[in-house]
């Protein structure tokens, strides 16, 4: 089991069962550095559950999740984050009562203990980093705005920015373009292609146009198992995939 790999993420024989129902069943998934992987599949295929398992929100029944050869299944959520795994939720999950600036500042990876937070001071370095990220996620002009007032698409970007500021080596995004306009989708695709460099990214998405734009490799999940894996073209022409998913 404890094989050394070169992959950033190596998921092996991962199973989680909720009262006997196997939401994820013997899953094997390997993601490389610099790779942008898209996971697709019909509703209830277990896509979000896989992300939940990797980031520690749900505990695996059996199997192993290795991140840079470190086992994640035994760590708690905040330890997994500190190890370098960032996760964006399906619905934008931001702090509506705080400003965009404060949202990013809180996510900056420093002083994450109780006493550290009391003593925390806004340094030039943090300020610069916040502004840098804000520019990257197209929100440089909204830094002082209360985050709750942003448009839906902007909230999605803000949450991506909150992950980017932590500079994770593995970034997991659950439906990052849901509710976005066509133009916002294009901008997001461009953003994802840019940030995938130097790290690994896993994206769950339904929008096939968008998937084509970003995916290096696509994994199709069905009933907790992998149905197909490969390039978008290969997957789209796979009869099994067409039957369970694309044909519907």
């Amino acid at each position, binding site marked *: 089991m404890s094989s050394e790999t070169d992959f950033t993420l190596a998921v092996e024989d991962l199973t989680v069962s909720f009262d006997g129902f196997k939401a994820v069943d013997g899953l094997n998934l390997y993601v490389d550095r610099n790779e942008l992987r898209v996971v697709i599949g019909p509703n209830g295929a277990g896509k979000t559950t896989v992300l939940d398992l990797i980031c520690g929100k749900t505990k695996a029944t059996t199997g192993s999740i290795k991140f840079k050869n470190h086992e994640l299944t035994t760590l708690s959520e905040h330890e997994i984050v500190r190890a370098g795994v960032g996760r964006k939720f399906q619905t934008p999950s931001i702090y509506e009562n705080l400003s965009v600036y404060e949202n990013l500042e*809180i996510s900056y990876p420093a002083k994450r203990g109780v006493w550290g937070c009391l003593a925390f001071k806004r340094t030039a370095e943090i300020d610069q980093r916040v502004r840098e990220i804000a520019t990257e996620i197209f929100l440089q002009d909204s830094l002082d705005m209360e985050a709750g007032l942003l448009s839906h698409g902007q909230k999605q970007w803000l949450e991506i920015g909150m992950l980017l500021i932590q500079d994770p080596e593995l970034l997991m995004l659950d439906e990052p373009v849901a509710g976005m306009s066509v133009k916002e989708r294009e901008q997001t695709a461009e953003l994802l292609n840019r940030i995938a460099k130097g790290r690994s990214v896993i994206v769950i998405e339904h929008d096939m146009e968008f998937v084509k734009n970003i995916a290096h490799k696509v994994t199709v999940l069905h009933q907790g198992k992998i149905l197909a894996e490969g390039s978008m073209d290969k997957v789209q022409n796979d009869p099994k995939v067409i039957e369970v998913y694309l044909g519907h």
Partner: protein
Amino acid sequence: MTAIYKHILGGKQGAIGLAILAALIFLVLPLSLDIFRLNLVGKYLTYAFAAVSLVLLWGYGGILSLGQGVFFGLGGYCMAMFLKLEASSPENTAIQSTPGIPDFMDWNQLTQLPWFWQPFDSFGFTLFAILAVPALLAYIIGVAMFKRRVGGVYFSIITQAIAAIITILIVGQQGLTGGINGITDLKTLHGWDIRADSAKLFLYYLNGALLIGVILLSRFILSSKLGRLMLAMRDKEDRVRFSGYDVSNFKIFMFCVAAMISAVGGAMFTLQVGFMSPSFVGIVPSIEMVIFAAVGGRMSLIGAVYGALIVNFGKTFFSESFPELWLFLMGGLFIAVVMFFPNGLAGLYEKYGNQALAKLKGMLRKPAPPAEPVNEVAATPAREAA
């Protein structure tokens, strides 16, 4: 300097609100009330500590504790134990079968001072215990609850149960705690008669100063990154957790801070009122404390003080005139706050007070500025102030 002004005083708005409160506590009330009434206000202001602690914990942290009375009571009991030991010197208790122990112990056939009473001989230890005992209990409860992710309504119910348990424990262990009567007949502190008018006046001012100090401390916490994190946790706990923070540690910390703040109030209560009893520990006083904070505005530290004052004035007034009506009135008040002005008096002030003030300023531009309206609930806009 500007950082202190901005963060701890809360900028111009916050500083004005605090100045009005300080003027009310230190000048207006002492000058207009006799010592009996002033002592009564002092008692109300000890509840304000608990209300302020709930603003931190509930308003900002979203953690509703229905057991702040426990910590208020523990602080009060620690102080009472010290004062009782001083009042029970062998000379004073010569007629007892065992001189030198508190009278209620003698009545309960105890012949020796229990071990946990002994360190309370020392005033230094007592001051330490007033903060440490409630903090320790809060820490234990906090670890047991928050590490297991118990939150929301469940946490509130458990704190309420703890309030009930502690009350039953105190009442049941009459020989050790003074039982239902509490610890009474407290007279002197290092020979200084706390019942004298001059002492009452001094304690009133000390209480006011401590309260202002606690508000400043709370503002410091809320204006730090920890304060923003509290708001963030209240909104999206999972996001905070998945940003690499151990959420439970922050909740435990805030719960301990709130416990210590309440305990200071309890200790000052004992000093000013001259006794401590289980009736300030249980479910009812704990819920009253929540009502003080809710009426004043759960997002406003200063509002909570006004909430404690106003509700208690109302309680004294109504329970003198219509004793059986008061509970219904208070229940009605709480429902009204929740339904019609969820941000309490501070919220009303923010909504209407600022407009009215601006209008007043416009009307009175030429003549001298108007006298400071005392009944103005000078609650500052919660976010900026805190």
